């Protein structure tokens, strides 16, 4: 590494290994946020409401990286110690995991562990449920209030078209499955579940976690919503796998 001289003070500046290592870590995180932004992978972690943090972080971390590099020479550089190196490596491991592994989403494993969508938290109102095209969020929200249930009940017998993934529990009959989609407010950690029961399914035709489009007739029965499927077809995982509130 080349040395330089502080012109104002006439003091020799040398590269500080600790600062250089810190620059590498900052650069790795900056690269991750650029990667998320460019590849569109931010949709696998954040809702549309919070995705603004990705470009902000990418820019700030890039500036911090260059700033740190420009100030990485010191009159009294501190050596890099093994503990510090270990901590720096630990900070880079999540970056590597997120970038090298294929994009993944929450699946059936979490569906039974998470709470259902909370009606009042979402923009769907009874008016939206009573008219227009029904979405999975409309249905999930409707199930949480008596007014919503009443509005949804009026739609019984109508045709619906939902996209989600297949979930089966131990007690799910062979000719049924639960069509599931997660709804995210900020990040996947706060995901809640929107689900409908799909009946009239070919037994053994669909695997857990398989993404499908279900077309059929909707029958809200109390707090449960059933879709009598007329057509079920495989679809690729949507580019935005989570619904946003």
């Amino acid at each position, binding site marked *: 590494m080349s040395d330089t001289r502080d012109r104002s*003070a006439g*003091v020799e500046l040398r590269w500080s*290994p600790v*600062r250089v290592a*810190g620059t590498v*870590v*900052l650069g790795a*995180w900056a690269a991750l946020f650029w990667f998320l932004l460019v590849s569109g992978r931010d949709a696998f*972690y*954040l809702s549309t409401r*919070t995705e603004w*943090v*990705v470009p*902000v*972080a990418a820019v*700030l971390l890039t500036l*911090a990286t260059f*700033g*740190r590099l*420009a*100030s990485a020479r*010191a*009159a009294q550089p*501190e*050596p*890099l*110690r*093994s*503990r510090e*190196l270990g901590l720096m*490596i*630990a*900070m*880079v*491991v*999540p970056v*590597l*995991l*997120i970038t*090298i*592994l*294929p994009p*993944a989403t929450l699946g*059936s*494993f*979490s569906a039974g*562990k*998470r*709470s259902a969508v*909370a009606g009042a*938290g979402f923009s769907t109102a009874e008016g939206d449920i009573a008219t227009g095209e029904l979405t999975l969020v409309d249905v999930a929200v409707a199930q949480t209030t008596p007014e919503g249930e009443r509005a949804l009940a009026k739609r019984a017998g109508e045709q619906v078209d939902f996209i989600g993934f297949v979930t089966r529990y131990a007690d799910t009959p062979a000719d049924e499955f639960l069509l599931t989609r997660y709804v995210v*407010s*900020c*990040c*996947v*950690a*706060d995901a*809640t579940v929107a689900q409908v029961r799909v009946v009239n399914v070919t037994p053994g035709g669909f695997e857990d*976690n398989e993404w499908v489009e279900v077309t059929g007739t909707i029958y809200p029965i109390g707090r449960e919503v059933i879709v009598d499927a007329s057509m079920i077809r495989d679809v690729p995982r949507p580019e935005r796998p989570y619904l946003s*509130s």
Partner: protein
Amino acid sequence: MALVARGQRRVGTRAALIAAGVVLLCAVAVRLADPQRVEWVRTYLVIFGSLLVQALPFVMLGALAAALVEVFVPIGTLERLGRLPRPLQLPTAALAGLAFPICECGSVPVARRLAQRGLMPSAAVTFMLAAPVINPVVIASTFVAYRGRSTTWTMVGGRFLLGMLVAIAVGWVIGARSKDELLKPNPEEEHEHRTHLARPEARWRRFFVHLGNDFLFMGRYLILGATIAAAIQTFLPASVLMSVAGVPVVSIVVMMVLAAALSLCSESDAFVAASFVQFGPSAQLAFLVSGPMVDAKLVTLYAGTFRRGFVRALVVGVFAATLVGALWIGVLAG
């Protein structure tokens, strides 16, 4: 030959490069093995990644604000706040959180710097606890999450009021303790401080050095916290806790424990709290107030920032004050 303390061995450029090479080889091996084929591993990694992708930018913003305080706020400026009449000091510090729309991960480095720059530690901690609960973004998200319910204003007003009261109560418990009694020394900072005393560096250099140091310091604890929180989220079924939803005091305690376990961002936690319809407003308020003050990822951040005894006192203080306050608001709200 003198023994070198564990972890203090100097690492040369070649050893560092070899370590980097080993890490890259391990990354390739992980890619080939693709552990995400196992469903719980995939779930864990998705939640772990999302916690970091959402929280790290706020740590960066917090580190940015902290570096600005460190480099550009003259020593002594913040000490002037100590001249306020004593009964006003802590409420003023708590209300300062209104002007700081950032989540809990960002408020920790700022509070640390404020205390280091001369703000009374009790006021710095009060600010740190209040800001993520009462800032306008969080209050707005709470309103959106509860709008249309009969408890909308109980939840919005209750969150603001109880958040202020709990932060002030914990600040009051700290009393006149000095920053040295609260803050853990950071070896990197001590080195930078010695370097600065030996030969002062230009402001812009100091700014970037502090920015990087704060990000790296807080980031490592956030990663540890996300590791723990993701494990809890992966394996803990929410239904386990539902059986106690109707029991008055127990339900509040359970919701505080749940908030600590889930480690949600304060800007989104209202949507999750609102989904626990089995729990009453008091228990949901406890979730909304204690969660942004004490959770799995925050405790690791606190452990890196504050001395152990203080972290213990902070956790107990937040839980006790929230429990009492939530019960009180529950009685008032009927």
